[in-house]
Structure formats: C-alpha cells, structure tokens
C-alpha cells in the first residue's frame, strides 16, 4: 500500500516518518500543532515509530505516564472503533466520527505536549486486527504499544531472544530512552541446551549496539537465566521495571500483534509493553496477508 506511494520507500523507515506529516497534515488539525514543533525528520531523524492502538469510543483514555514514556517517539495514534457486521461502516462514521476524532485530538495534544510527534488515524472497522496490521505496515511501525499505566519510567526491561530482532529492538530502546535517565535491563532466557556463553555473547552484542546508538553504558544492566517458562520469567522480571520491550512471536504470515506471549506479559505485568514488530515482508507477501480472505 504505502509502497506504491513514490514518496515512501518501505526499506527506509525514517523516510516514512518524514513523509507521515505530509500524509496527514490535512487529516487532522492536531498535526498543525505537531508541525509547529518541527518536522520529526528534521529535529530527530531517529525517532522510533510506535503504533498506539486505542479503542477511542469505549472510554479508553491515556493511562498516566504514557505521554512521558513516548516523549521521544513518533507516535501513530490509531483510534479505532469496531462495528458489528450488520452495520455499514460509513453509517458508524457518520454518527460517531466527529466525536471520536475530537477525543483522539485531545490525546494527540497531550502526547505532543510531552514531546512526541503524532500522526492521528481514526478507522471504523469490522476487524480490529486487520486495521492494526495495516497501520503497522503503512507507517512502518517499529513497535506496537500495549498501553498500561506507568509512573515516571525509570527502568526498562528489554527481553532479548536472539540476533534476529536485534537491530529493531535496539533502535526502539535507544530512540526512546537514550536521552532519558531510565536504566535499561537486558534479559535473556536461555533455552534448554543453549550454552551460557552464547547467551552472554548475545547480551554483549546487544549492549554494544545500544551504546552505539547513544545509550550510556552505565545505564545498561544484564540478566541471564535458565527458566522453565520463559514468558512467566519475563513477566516476573518485569515486575521490577516500569516498561517492557519484547519481540513479536511466531514469525507467520498472519501477525498477531497482541499474540499470546506479549499479551500474557502485559496482563501480568500491568505496565506498558512495547511489542517490537518484525521487518515487514515485501509487497508480494503483504498481498497474501489480505484480511477477510482467511
């Protein structure tokens, strides 16, 4: 979709961020406020793009501390409203559109007051998952936020699984927290027969990558252990931190943003969880992902 737009090469996410304000400048008055703060691509070329899905008409609102947590991000504030099959989508939009948009703009203003750049999208949909997947893809989002309340984010847990998502994980963490006082704890759960040395070297590589991206080495801690149930272990360690960053699970064509593990962690942890998205497949595969044909 976005890749057919000549201004938006998919392989260059910063360009997407740069393109986004043009994309939505006329979409929502909020962007005027955002633009007054400057084009995100100019003042912070490395702002990680985070999708923040919010069920805007069901009374969901910004949890405390979430604006501060996202201060260094480019937030795609994705308001959505799920409508039943028997209702025409434009009928729902006609009735609830303005109200939902007003609410979203309020949230967007709060986010940009805290320092974030914001794109506002409002979608009326029969399938929330299809919408979220599409928006992740269109904005080339680095991560999706499972929002939960948080105090001032002082420490962040990054669950490291392997080399695969390393680049994206570190881009997100460094982009969001390098300039803050937050400490970053890298955690790796060893598999049954994975040697300790391998886990240690993974944590070292990750640390190095974070330092490369501007995180102070003093702010980084590491934990390595060999739990029976990795998900519970992540949730357990998370309890000592204010926010969790973890990868998507199950690399399959259909992407479940709130797939089981991150969902479980979010439920037990009760704090915000960033789910780092895999690199989006090329256009051909994206076509296979067409919602509604399953």
């Amino acid at each position, binding site marked *: 979709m976005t890749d057919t737009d000549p201004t938006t090469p998919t392989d260059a996410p910063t360009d997407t961020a740069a393109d986004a304000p043009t994309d939505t400048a006329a979409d929502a008055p909020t962007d005027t406020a955002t633009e007054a703060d400057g084009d995100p691509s100019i003042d912070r070329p490395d702002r990680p793009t985070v999708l923040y899905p919010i069920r805007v008409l069901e009374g969901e609102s910004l949890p405390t501390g979430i604006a501060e947590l996202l201060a260094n991000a480019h937030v795609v504030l994705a308001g959505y409203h799920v409508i039943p099959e028997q209702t025409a989508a434009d009928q729902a939009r*006609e009735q609830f559109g303005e109200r939902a948009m007003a609410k979203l703009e309020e949230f967007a203003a709060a986010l940009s007051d805290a320092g974030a750049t914001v794109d506002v999208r409002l979608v009326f949909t029969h399938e929330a998952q299809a919408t979220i997947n599409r928006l992740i893809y269109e904005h080339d989002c680095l991560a999706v936020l499972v929002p939960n309340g948080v105090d001032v984010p002082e420490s962040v847990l990054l669950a490291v699984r392997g080399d695969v998502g390393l680049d994206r994980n570190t881009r997100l963490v460094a982009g969001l927290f390098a300039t803050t006082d937050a400490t970053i704890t890298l955690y790796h759960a060893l598999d049954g027969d994975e040697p300790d040395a391998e886990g240690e070297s993974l944590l070292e590589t990750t640390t190095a990558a974070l330092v490369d991206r501007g995180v102070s080495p003093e702010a980084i801690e590491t934990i390595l252990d060999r739990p029976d149930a990795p998900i519970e272990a992540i949730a357990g360690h998370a309890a000592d931190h204010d926010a969790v960053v973890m990868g998507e699970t199950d690399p399959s064509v259909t992407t479940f943003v709130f797939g089981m593990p991150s969902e479980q962690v979010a439920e037990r942890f009760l704090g915000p969880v960033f789910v780092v998205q895999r690199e989006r497949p090329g256009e051909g595969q994206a076509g296979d992902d067409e919602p509604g044909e399953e």
Partner: protein
Amino acid sequence: MGPDDATKRDDRGDPAPPDQPAPAVEHDRDRGEGELERTIGLVGGLAIGIGTMIGAGIFVFPGLAAESAGPAASLSFAIGAVVALLVALPLSELATAMPRSGGGYFFISRGLGTGPGAVIGIGLWLGLVFASAFYLVGLGSYAGQVFAEAGISLPVDPAVPLGVAFGVALTVLSVFGTENTASLQNAIVIVLLVILTLFLSYGSLDALGVFGTESTPERFLPPGGMVPVLRTAALVFTSYLGFAQVATVAGDITDPSRNLPLAMVGSVLVVGAFYVVTIFVATSAFGSARLGGFGETAMVEVARAFVGLPGALAIVVAGLLATFSSANASILSASRAVYAVSRDDLLPTSASRLNLRYGTPHVALGMAGGPIVVLAATGQVELLAEVASVLHLVMYGLVCVALIQLRRESPEWYTPSFRCPAGFLVAGLGTLASLSLIAFMQPASIGVGAAVMVAAYAWYRYYATDVELKGAF
C-alpha cells in the same frame, strides 16, 4: 491488497497538495471523521452473493417452476442468469465509481436525480422486505419439514407461523447480536455447495442413466411454448436478487476494481449453474406435475428418491441453512437501504441512528423486520417473490440507464476503476431485459409493485422536494 489499489483510493473533495500527484488513499478517508477499513475479500464477496441467492432457486422454486414450465424451467433459470449478468457488469462499474452503502439506490440518485432515486430507494427497501418475507416462508417450510421427518404431524401447516417466528428472531438477533457473522456466512456457503455438489452429481448421473433406471424424458417445452417459460423466468428471478447485495458493501471490499466485478459475475454464474442442474435433476427424478405437487420442499422428495432418508435429511439441513442465510442477508440489506435513504434526507434521519451500546442500526432494522414479519404472515410465496422481483428489476433497469447517463455526461468525479466492457450495449440490453421481464409477471404483482413506487414518489413530493442528489458525490 495489490499494487493497483493505489489508483482507486477514495480521497474525494480535498485538493491534492501541489507538490505531488493526487494522493493515493486506499481506505476511505474522510478528513476529520476517520477512515473505513476494507475487510471483505473476493471470497467474502462471493459468499455474500451466493449466500443471499442460493436459498430461493434451489430450495423453494424447483417444485413451483417445474409445475408451470416443465423441464424447460431450467431454461427459465438460464434466462434469469443472463438478465442478472447484463445488470451485474454495469452495476460493478458504478460500484467502483461510488463505493457507498446503498448500492443501486445510490447510483440512481446520483446519476438520474432525486425523484428516481427516491422511488428506487424506498422501492429497494420494500423490495428487500418482500424478498425477506419470501425467504422466511421458505425457511418456515423447511423448518416444518423437520417435524415431518421426525414423524410429528401438526394440525396446521407450520410454514407460515415458523417463518414469522424466524423473522422476529432474526430481527432481534441483528439488533443485539454483536458477534461478527461473516465467517459463519462463509462456512454456511461452503457446506451448502458441498452438499449440493454431491447431490447434483449423483442426481445427474442417475438422470443420464449411468446407474439406476433410465427415466423417460419428458417433453422439454411445456404446452404454450416460450410464454410459460418466460413467465417462470419472471417468477424465479427472485433467485438472482442477491448479486446486487455485493454492491451495497462496495465500500468494505478490498481491491474493488477486481473483486467487485468478480464477486458479482462469479456468484451469478455459480448459482445459475446450480439452478439449471437442479431443475434438470429434479424434473428427471419425477415428472414435473408430481414435482409441483410437493411445493416448496420438493427437493427433499427428490433427494429421498435418490438416497433415501439420509439424502432427505441432508437437503432439509441444506435448505434450512440456505433460506436462513438468504433471509438474514436480506434483512440486513433492507436496513442498509433504509440507512442510505435517510442519510440523504429522504426519510427522517432518526431512521439511521445507531445505538452506541450495540453499534447496530436498531431503527432501520426495525423498519425492515416489522413489515417483513407482517408480509411473511400472508404466506403468499409467489406474490411475495414477484413483487420483490418487480421492484428490483425496475432498479436494475434504471441502474443501466444511470450508467449510460453518467458515461455520456462523464462528470469529473466519475472515475470508475472497473469499466464494463461494451458499456452502452450491455447497459442498453440490461435495461431492455430487466423491464421486459416485468411484463411476464402476474398482474397482481405488477400492481403491488407499481403501487409501492407510486407511494414512494408521493412521499418524495410530500417530504423531500428540496433535496438535490444528482451528482452529489
């Protein structure tokens, strides 16, 4: 979501930023009000079309059709398919140019103006009400057959009371049910097609004398030649009304320039083939006169003749599913028609209000469900079917006229991403075929249809003379 999606993005009204070509927006974006997610793919579109149509042609009409046209009733069904195809192509073009709920009504009101729009919009609502009532009586017949198969004899024919009960239940369900029914609809259609394919393959082999006893071929054309065949074509045309339902969800369909025409034409071809084969099999199994005697559930007897009780039960189940899905789809379509008309101020706007708790258009659903239940209570299967067809055929004729009109005027906003091949010819034939078919209906049906349209026009003159819809897009 193919690469060509970008070409049909709907970004009406707002000028493009000067530094780039018109922005490509795939999902219907309305600045300040949000965008709409497209969630129905080709399979979903086909399921809507097939699911709406297949209930009537196979599970209600074979007995009635064979009685009046004999084995040539398959020809009647084939004629219906041709008429439907002639309309489906222009309709696809219009739907890709104006992907809004409301379907035919929307195209006619924008192409031809408010007057015809009002007649068709209100006519479409009531046409779907008649169609739903017809499907409900069919559903009631199959539900009644369940009692018959169980050996319970009832003092009265249960078809009408059961149909009414289903009508009430479906209306209530559609107001309060928040479960998405799309996947259920797909599953029902697949189960139906499997049962029918097995049954019809067996039946065709039997009819051709591959096994069993070769049946004596009946005279193909009925006495009276083509007139009864055309009359039957008019009667059974209700079996094809569903293809236009695909256009009413045009705004929800992914890659509409490809999926809309494919779903409409594809569903007509699929159900048309099933109808023709069904009549062939049914008339080979019994003589047409005897088939007619079985009434709405004739197919159950055909199945029983081939494979005994299991066959009969399979067809009862299939009939329940098919008529249920047709009735349900028509109630929802009728409520969408009410919405489309009231959005344009041709009906009070309160008619399209949604309740926030369930997100469903409860007023519109009530305006669909109420009259449906009343009409189902009359139990007049043939009259209900024909009035539904008359009202739809007028719309189809005018849809074709709207296509010709819009192509000739070619206003700036008219940029369909699918263009009907040989547009003027197809649309001209479509108009002619649709309106000619009406001439073969019973006078009573034409009378009721005309009365509905006159009443709709009178309402427009009384309530909405100041509404200007032509070209309002």
